[in-house]
């Protein structure tokens, strides 16, 4: 019978199609459609002719009968039946192909609406299920499967490529992928049911699909819907666990990374990861690589939560624990690698530190004993490298991790202990170690919390408010007997009485600082110094260099409050009051023997601050800086200015002004820095490469080099518009050129800052003539740093420098055009 009906099926289908394309009679159309629908039960038709038929039906040419009678239920019902009961994979392919190939017309709209309907009536699930049943359609060629997977995974892209802004919401990734996820869930449920009934199923198709979607970067949409359900289903049902683990095993290798990452990212807690993944990390090489290497050592954008679940997952099972040790070993190696510290960014170092602490916290005592030697080496090396660093964040990270490790290694009597100010980052790092005892409780009651948080929160809040009210109640009881009805006055002026009086003369002050053993006298002198120095210009000039010497060598012997600031202010006051000799002294001392790094840094800071103050116009703030003679003169002529002022104000008040703008003219004042800028900068550039026993600027003392470059940049920037600026800039660029590839990031930051300062302050014409030879090389170097440097600040400064250079270039190149 099948041989007999073979011809009629093809022919009948053909005649029906002809009828449909030509006829305008609804009844006739309906008849042909129902005939076609009946053929769906015929395996040959669905396998061989369905695609053609559907293509013909939806193609633009045959659309008029449908649109003309679109409100006719008689036609619509068989049509829907034909489309939505036919083989779903073919339908989807035809619809998507039609959408992407059809021009804009009514046919396109119809196709879109059919596809929408296709999604909404749950044909996706049918599609997935048909591919999952063993002995179903899965005997297709792998090429067709590939096509179907591709179309399913890329539906949003395919449709929006064609429809642009008119894409329906249902096709947007935000809606489509969650829908796909729900369909996958339904399908998995069916699979479980089938397995219980003793049927075989194949998860290859879904695995492929999942992999493809994740590869395209939509893992978050899929897993946000999928993961919470799976996590709760697997908690009770071992069959589900097996199904999911099988599914993950079937994921194609090239998609493994994105699937696993998305999965772990969306899972809460190590126990959930363990339920879903089983021992995948042991059996699958790729998964092992991703989990034990890539996620820990190569990527660093993930939240700590992910690291916690990942490492907790490794720790949960005896088969996986060797992997945890392996991770710890590799993390240790990276953590104590000094070149890694220099060439990776701070964020990644933080991430690795977190991983290290988590690993250590998860190990038990016997495992720690095994790895003791390695961890000790790692700790000592890593802490030392980090303490060498110029960046405070890295230093602190080293201190915290060192402390935690030594605590965990539990060395009697030789635990590391550092002094630092705790901030958020440090607290987080420390909490990683502490979270271990609570680990078990977290596992025993897993993500119930995530479901129940909304219910739990109000409770805890009420209990909180209760405790607050009870506390306040107690307070009010005790307050009955208090003195609170009397509000206190400001008592900030209540300070401890000093025994001795502050010095009144510069020389007294100097003497006290030089020779006094009385803590209070030294403190008072230091406090009084700045004011005295600024007020008594003549007296200051007599002893300026000596005073500066004393201050530079002054130790904080008595733990004076604000010692550094007071000392620095006094030195700045000296420099500003008697610039030439003091600057000469400071710049020579910077390179001389037997100073500590701190003192050299102080010199730099004082120079920078003084230059800044000198370059600012004199404001009322520093009236004390004016010579005392001027003050006396003003006192004498006091009454004269007084009446003059009165007359002045009277005239002002009586005069009616037509224009208001000119009343506040900014008075030009000479820039005090411009004339002395050279003496600040050139001595500092002179001796940098003369290495001494106590000071090796280009070697180990790169901290000072970084500060020096920064200070030079500042001095350069403050000298903008000064005549000497172009010479300064040239000299500075020469200096910078020698150290531009320094390994320390602080130094590189300094270099970038100095370069930016030069570009900002140097007149653009001289800049171009000076740079002309090296212009291209400079640009290339800046571009390279902007792209490849591991330090964020260096990169952004380099970009800044490039912009400035380009701006200089364009103004310079445009100028002749304007003139001609």
């Amino acid at each position, binding site marked *: 019978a099948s041989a007999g009906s073979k011809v009629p099926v093809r022919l009948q289908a053909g005649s029906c199609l002809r009828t449909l394309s030509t006829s305008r009679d609804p009844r006739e159309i309906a008849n042909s459609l129902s005939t076609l629908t009946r053929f769906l039960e015929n395996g040959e038709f669905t396998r061989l002719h369905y695609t053609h038929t559907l293509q013909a039906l939806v193609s633009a040419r045959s659309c008029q009968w449908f649109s003309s009678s679109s409100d006719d239920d008689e036609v619509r019902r068989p049509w829907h039946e034909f489309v939505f009961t036919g083989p779903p994979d073919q339908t989807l392919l035809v619809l998507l192909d039609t959408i992407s190939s059809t021009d804009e017309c009514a046919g396109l709209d119809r196709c879109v609406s059919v596809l929408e309907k296709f999604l909404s009536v749950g044909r996706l699930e049918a599609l997935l299920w048909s591919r999952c049943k063993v002995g179903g359609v899965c005997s297709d060629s792998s090429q067709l499967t590939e096509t179907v997977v591709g179309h399913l995974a890329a539906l949003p892209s395919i449709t929006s490529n064609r429809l642009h802004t008119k894409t329906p919401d249902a096709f947007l990734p935000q809606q489509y992928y969650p829908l796909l996820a729900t369909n996958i869930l339904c399908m998995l449920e069916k699979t479980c049911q089938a397995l219980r009934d003793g049927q075989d199923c194949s998860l290859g198709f879904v695995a492929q699909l999942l992999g493809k979607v994740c590869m395209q970067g939509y893992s978050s949409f899929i897993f946000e819907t999928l993961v919470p359900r799976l996590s709760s289903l697997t908690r009770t049902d071992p069959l589900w666990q097996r199904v999911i683990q099988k599914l993950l095993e079937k994921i194609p290798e090239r998609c493994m990374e994105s699937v696993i990452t998305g999965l772990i990212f969306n899972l809460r807690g190590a126990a959930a990861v363990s339920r879903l993944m089983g021992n995948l990390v042991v059996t699958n090489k790729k998964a092992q690589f991703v989990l034990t290497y890539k996620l820990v050592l190569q990527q660093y954008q993930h939240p700590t939560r992910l690291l916690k679940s990942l490492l907790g997952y490794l720790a949960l099972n005896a088969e996986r624990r060797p992997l945890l040790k392996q991770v710890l070993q590799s993390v240790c190696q990276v953590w104590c690698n000094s070149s890694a510290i220099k060439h990776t960014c701070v964020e990644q170092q933080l991430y690795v530190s977190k991983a290290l602490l988590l690993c250590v916290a998860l190990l038990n005592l016997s495992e720690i004993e095994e790895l003791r030697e390695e961890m000790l080496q790692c700790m000592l090396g890593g802490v030392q490298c980090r303490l060498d660093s110029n960046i405070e964040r890295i230093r602190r990270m080293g201190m915290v991790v060192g402390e935690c490790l030594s605590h965990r290694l539990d060395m009697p009597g030789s635990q590391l202990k550092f002094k630092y100010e705790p901030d958020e980052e440090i607290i987080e790092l420390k909490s990683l170690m502490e979270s271990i005892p609570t680990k078990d409780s977290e596992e025993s009651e897993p993500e119930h919390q995530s479901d129940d948080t909304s219910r739990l929160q109000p409770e805890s809040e009420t209990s909180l408010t209760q405790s607050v009210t009870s506390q306040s109640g107690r307070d009010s009881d005790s307050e009955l007997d208090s*003195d609170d009805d*009397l*509000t*206190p*006055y*400001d008592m900030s002026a*209540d*300070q*401890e009485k000093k025994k001795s009086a502050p010095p009144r003369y510069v020389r007294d002050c100097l003497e006290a600082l030089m020779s006094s053993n009385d803590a209070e006298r030294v403190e008072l002198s230091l406090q009084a110094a700045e004011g005295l120095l600024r007020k008594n210009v003549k007296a200051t000039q007599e002893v300026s260099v000596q005073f500066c010497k004393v201050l530079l060598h002054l130790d904080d012997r008595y733990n004076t409050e604000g010692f550094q600031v007071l000392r620095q202010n006094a030195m700045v006051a000296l420099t500003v009051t008697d610039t030439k000799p003091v600057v000469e002294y400071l710049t020579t001392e910077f390179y001389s023997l037997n100073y500590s790094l701190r003192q050299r840094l102080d010199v730099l800071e004082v120079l920078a601050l003084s230059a800044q103050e000198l370059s600012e116009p004199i404001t009322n703030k520093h009236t004390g800086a004016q010579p005392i003679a001027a003050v006396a003169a003003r006192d004498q002529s006091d009454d004269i200015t007084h009446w003059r002022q009165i007359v002045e104000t009277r005239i002002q008040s009586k005069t009616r002004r037509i224009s208001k703008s000119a009343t506040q003219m900014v008075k030009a004042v000479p820039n005090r820095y411009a004339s002395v800028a050279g003496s600040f900068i050139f001595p500092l550039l002179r001796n940098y490469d003369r290495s001494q026993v106590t000071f090796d600027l280009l070697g180990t003392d790169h901290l000072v080099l970084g500060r020096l470059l920064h200070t030079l940049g500042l001095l350069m920037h403050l000298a903008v518009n000064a005549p000497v600026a172009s010479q300064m800039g040239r000299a500075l660029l020469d200096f910078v050129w020698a150290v531009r590839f320094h390994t320390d990031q602080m130094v590189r930051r300094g270099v970038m800052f100095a370069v930016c300062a030069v570009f900002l302050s140097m007149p653009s014409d001289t800049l171009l003539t000076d740079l002309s030879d090296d212009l291209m090389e400079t640009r290339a170097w800046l571009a390279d740093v902007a792209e490849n440097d591991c330090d964020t600040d260096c990169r952004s400064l380099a970009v800044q420098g490039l912009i400035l250079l380009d701006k200089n270039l364009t103004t310079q190149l445009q100028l002749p055009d304007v003139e001609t």
Partner: protein
Amino acid sequence: MARPPPNPLYILRGSGDVVNTLHFCCDGQGPSLLYSGSGSGAIHVWNLTTRRPERVLESHSGNSVIWLQALKESSTLISQGRDMRMCVWDLSEGRGAVTDALFTGSVGFCQCSLLETQPGSTLLAHPTEHMEEVSVVEMKSWTQVCTLKPDLKLGMLMCMKMWQAESGPVLCAGYEDGSVILYDVSHRRLFSCLKAHTEPVMCLDVDVCRQKGVSGSSDNILQSWTIDDQRNLQMHGSVQLTNPGVSSARVRADGKILATAGWDNNVRVFGWKKLKPLAVLQHHTDMVNSVAFSDHQDPPQRLLAAASKDQRITVWSIYSES
């Protein structure tokens, strides 16, 4: 931000020497007066309305006046000087003569204490030539009622205050070793002893209504103590001062605030209930020797006066609004 501390209401200058002691007399009859005793033996009678000295009494043959008090009824003033004598002054109708005097023999700085048990009968407690001894005498006849002496060695008598309790006059005395002792005057015995400080007790005051007292010493602790029903002294609260040394402490009559005179030139004001610091009055340039609250009937008029080694007297109005 808390209010800035107030400035003095006015300043009385011209005492010509260190001012040691103050006494208000503002009971409504006649002008409000403030008596001050100076280091050169002069007693100034300040009129608080004109803010001028009404008269100046030269006394104690140029020796420092360390204590002054006026009797409530008659216009009689009693002064104590470093010449080891007590003088009784009749100031009525413009007179200014010493009517009576008592040789105490005390060479110390301890101030006397006066108790008017009933009109016409006044008890005076004064230090004697024996350093730790208190002698209580009846004013009219200078007949000695009793002498009080601690059994233990407590060092010199530093300060005292006598008041009338239900059972009879009671005297509280502070000693050099930091102890505060409560005596029953009528039975000449010791009620209780409290080691309130580690340094000498420099001053004390007792709020009779609340059975609570305060003592200051040369260290930086201000200590308050209570007297329970069995006449035992008990530590109550303490407050730490920024700078050590309290030369005088006074509780205001309404029991709201306490003022102390500090060696650090500051007058400090505390809440009396819990010794909560309320204000630091900074004006003097030298040690403050004495503080006193005025006895105005009308609470808003009540003043605080402080006498200092810098020869000035400052008068403040603080927490007097309600």
